């Protein structure tokens, strides 16, 4: 593995290697010294063209716990806001000797371009590109589910919300099906991509019918900026049909858990009672996010690049 651009690139073995490595990384949180020397002397650049607090902080914490040097490069207040092209930014990072670049971009495919163009030699981690993918989010979701449910093989996982615009949904569907889970996506018809036939999952429009058969439910954030685009009549109607409240949660099997990638709109796609309930693993997802990103950075950056490419 040289880059992590898409959850689809991961084989089952590779995905399990990342999850197993993250399990070891997570035990670091219990230690007095939360630092490992694995990436000493390596430089990780957080290249964020889009605003993001949680993902950037999570990657920054992960890189620092592995002793890497971290450079944060965000669009605001940098040359990027002055109209520098992706190519020139990449050449700059190459000249600075970046070993790894964590890239968040509003356009789908930007991390792929960065990785395959030959402008730079470092490893690229996709931290969310447009409406395409967000593989580390899917890995941390899978990791959280695995810790609660055991193996995901044959587990029924339901993803609810704006699948059309959600990179989290796409990455999760791809990764979870690789890991053997049965994935159902539930969304208003207007928020389902045109052709779902190539997605390895089932589509439904009826949340109440799916909930009793779910081992885990992942609620996606309704992006407020979409609400003016008439994908659904009103926020209240969305909440009535696709929001997870206490009554709906009661339909879930006893061991089922509730996930949300954050940030939550309490009262919209998820009610406060559900978000704060014992079934909710939303805070744990954040902790696990650091462990997963440590595992990804470790596996991509710790070895020698030359041998890695020939291996």
């Amino acid at each position, binding site marked *: 593995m040289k880059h992590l651009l898409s959850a689809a690139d991961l084989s089952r073995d590779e995905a399990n290697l990342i999850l197993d*490595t993250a399990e*070891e990384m997570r035990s670091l949180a219990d230690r007095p010294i939360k630092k*490992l*020397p*694995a990436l000493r002397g390596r430089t990780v650049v957080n290249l964020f063209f889009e605003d993001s607090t949680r993902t950037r902080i999570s990657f920054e914490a992960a890189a620092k716990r592995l002793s890497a040097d971290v450079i944060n490069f965000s669009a605001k207040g940098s040359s990027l806001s002055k109209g520098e092209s992706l190519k020139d930014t990449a050449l700059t990072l190459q000249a600075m000797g970046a070993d790894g670049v964590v890239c968040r971009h509003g356009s789908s495919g930007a991390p792929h371009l960065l990785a395959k163009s030959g402008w730079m030699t470092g490893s690229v981690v996709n931290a969310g590109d447009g409406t395409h993918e967000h593989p580390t989010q899917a890995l941390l979701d899978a990791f959280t589910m695995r810790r609660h449910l055991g193996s995901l093989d044959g587990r029924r996982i339901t993803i609810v919300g704006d699948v059309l615009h959600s990179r989290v949904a796409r990455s999760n569907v791809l990764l979870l099906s690789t890991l053997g889970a049965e994935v159902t996506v539930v969304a208003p018809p207007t928020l389902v991509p045109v052709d779902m036939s190539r997605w390895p999952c089932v589509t439904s429009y009826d949340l109440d019918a799916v909930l009793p058969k779910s081992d885990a439910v992942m609620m996606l954030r309704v992006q407020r900026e979409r609400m003016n685009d008439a994908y659904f009549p009103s926020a209240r109607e969305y909440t009535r049909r696709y929001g997870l409240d206490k009554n709906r949660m009661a339909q879930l099997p006893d061991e089922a858990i509730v996930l949300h990638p954050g940030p939550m709109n309490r009262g919209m796609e998820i009610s406060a009672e559900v978000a704060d309930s014992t079934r909710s693993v939303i805070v744990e997802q954040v902790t696990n996010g650091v462990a997963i990103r440590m595992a990804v950075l470790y*596996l991509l950056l710790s070895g*020698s690049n030359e041998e*890695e490419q020939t*291996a």
Partner: protein
Amino acid sequence: MSPAQSAEHPETAQPPKRSSREVLDASDISRALTRIAHEILERNRGADPVVLLGIPSRGVPLAQRVSARIQAVEGQSVPTGSLDVTMYRDDIGLKPPRGLEHTDIPADGIDGKVVVLVDDVLFSGRTIRAALDALSDIGRPRAVQLAVLVDRGHRELPIRADYVGKNLPTSLVERVTVHLTEYDGQDAVLIADKGAKG
């Protein structure tokens, strides 16, 4: 690979191949571990301060076996765990990335204890150096001691073992392989010429 898995598949154990010879058999290994257990107790005047940490992969079952012997002699269990040193190795940037092994530090920690590191073969000493670095990130033991099943010489660092199962003079071209029931279906220490998979 978990020890349980390989124990279920004893057929995976390879009979010694042509250019490899057995230098310790199962009963030799058993006797050596019993002696090491007694030496640990003697040196530390009992089992009280001792924490055993095996270095994965084969140091871990060795630590557990020594622990069982101490328990049998003293009637008191010794905290036993494992310490993965992968991320502390000095060649981490030179080789392809490796998966991590499990680190399991006993609940009471290692502060003020006598940590006995347990490994199968002592060679260059670089693994032990990495283990010492890993330990210092976990706590501050009162002392660190080293137990190895085989010391094959050729140290590249000023490190020595406190407890040695067998001193085995080897040449650099030879390979020393330790087989343990937990992983390989049988107990044996083999020496092979380079190239021969022993």
